[in-house]
């Protein structure tokens, strides 16, 4: 099966510090569902940054969508970023824009006209339970509401790769299940999903998902083969 992402001996360090990621070798198969887990400081967020092209590796090679992008010129990156949806741990919503405008942003960046934006955004906001909060700005939304806006923004463009950093950290169990249902539904439609989480319950509730476990910046699997999730606390 084709790989949406291929990491080959990838290492990452910030500035002159020690490597935060070392010798990462793995492939993410197109249309698969992955959980990225590991203790705090293991390098999960750094790995996600490499995946959504916010960071370049300091060594090794990364292929996304079949293209070698480790040293690609920065002008070449935007078209690939548009194929990736990202749910940030800190939401990264633009404070002075309404929830509607935040969710509509990827569509507008993609060149959609206003008349083509209204319907999908309203539908997505309704799906995450924020239809009546469309004009609210992020500072007036609760943490959970902000997280749902962030998720709606990440999936509005039907990305080929969806990367989520602790996407259910600020929502209740019911909303967490609904959001995971959305991720699963997108995965069934062909989107490759990578979710970084500590929530074992969430991992166990997603049958068929695979697990990437990081510890001290390296994959915890001597063979480099990705495994199915465990049934117990990691």
């Amino acid at each position, binding site marked *: 099966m084709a790989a949406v992402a291929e990491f080959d001996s990838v290492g990452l360090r910030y500035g002159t510090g020690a490597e935060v990621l070392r010798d990462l070798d793995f492939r993410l198969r197109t249309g698969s569902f992955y959980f990225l887990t590991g203790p705090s400081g293991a390098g999960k967020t750094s790995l996600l940054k490499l995946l959504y092209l*916010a*960071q370049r590796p300091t060594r090794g090679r990364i292929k996304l969508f079949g293209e070698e992008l480790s040293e690609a010129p920065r002008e070449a990156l*935007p078209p690939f970023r*548009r194929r990736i949806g990202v749910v940030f741990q800190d939401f990264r919503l*633009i404070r002075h824009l309404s929830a509607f405008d935040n969710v509509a*942003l990827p569509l*507008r960046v*993609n060149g959609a006209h206003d008349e083509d934006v209204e319907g999908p955004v309203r539908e997505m906001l309704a799906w995450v339970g924020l239809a009546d909060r469309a004009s609210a700005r992020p500072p007036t939304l609760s943490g959970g509401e902000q997280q749902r806006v962030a998720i709606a923004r990440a999936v509005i463009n039907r990305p080929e790769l969806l990367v989520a950093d602790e996407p259910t950290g600020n929502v209740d169990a019911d909303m967490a299940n609904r959001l995971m249902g959305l991720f699963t539904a997108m995965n069934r439609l062909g989107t490759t999903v990578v979710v970084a989480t500590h929530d074992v319950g969430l991992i166990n509730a997603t049958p068929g998902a695979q697990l990437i476990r990081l510890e001290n910046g390296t994959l915890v699997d001597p063979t480099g083969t990705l495994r199915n999730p465990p049934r117990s606390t990691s």
Partner: protein
Amino acid sequence: MFDWLFVSPAERRLLGGPRFGGPTPWVIAIMSFSIMLIAASGLALASTAALVGRSIEARYTLQVPGGGANLGKLVEAVRATPGVTSIEAVPERDMRQTLERWLGPEAQSAELPVPALIDFDATTDVKLTPLEQRARAITPGARIVAHRDSVGPLLHSLRLLQWVAFGLVLLLSIAAAAAVVLAARGALDTHRFTIEVMHGIGATDIQVTHLFQRKILIDALAGSLAGAFAAALVLLLLASGAALAGELTGGATLGPVDLAVLALLPFALTILATWVARTAVLRSLRKAL
């Protein structure tokens, strides 16, 4: 090419903040005001220099010492010289009347030696040496003075001032451009988070730049026009003294071409500011991934 000028309200909301907020419109307005006044001065000086230059190029004066008792003969001698196109005698009494403005009754004193003058215009092929010799034969001590020799230093100073004015316009334009660069960098810092988010979801540098470019164009246009309007008011006030200026300069004023240049200056400043802002923003964005 200019589609970035016409963005949707949603795109305008991306940068937030009030329209004409920040110091940029004010800085540009002050620059525009100064540039307009200095440019108007430079153009007026250029116009004056050209007018003075034209008027003195072929003008000569025959100075006749001792009151010009033989003024009539001298006028005839000048008129008879080939190449002389016009002639005007200024008798001693007219000279004394003119001097009275500065000297008072003393100007009529016989102890004050006042020459009579014969001003004449001539073509370039006029033979001045024989004319001067004939004049001396009639009135010893008579001599011909070319206006371009006597007024030349003044004309040189006028032209120098004109170039100083244009140099100042250039310097102020550079200062305005530098202010725009600082404003663009400030705006980038203010909106760094928005830019990061936009880049993260696949916005290109050009898309981000267009937002800033348009905002700075509007700020610069508003500032330029406001400054130009204020400068126009000042110039109109100065023009109320134009009669006096006209007397001093021989009627030199700002012509239609000069006025067109002045009218275009605010727009030129706006284009400069927008181009500088675009370049600064693009350069700054390229430092990020």
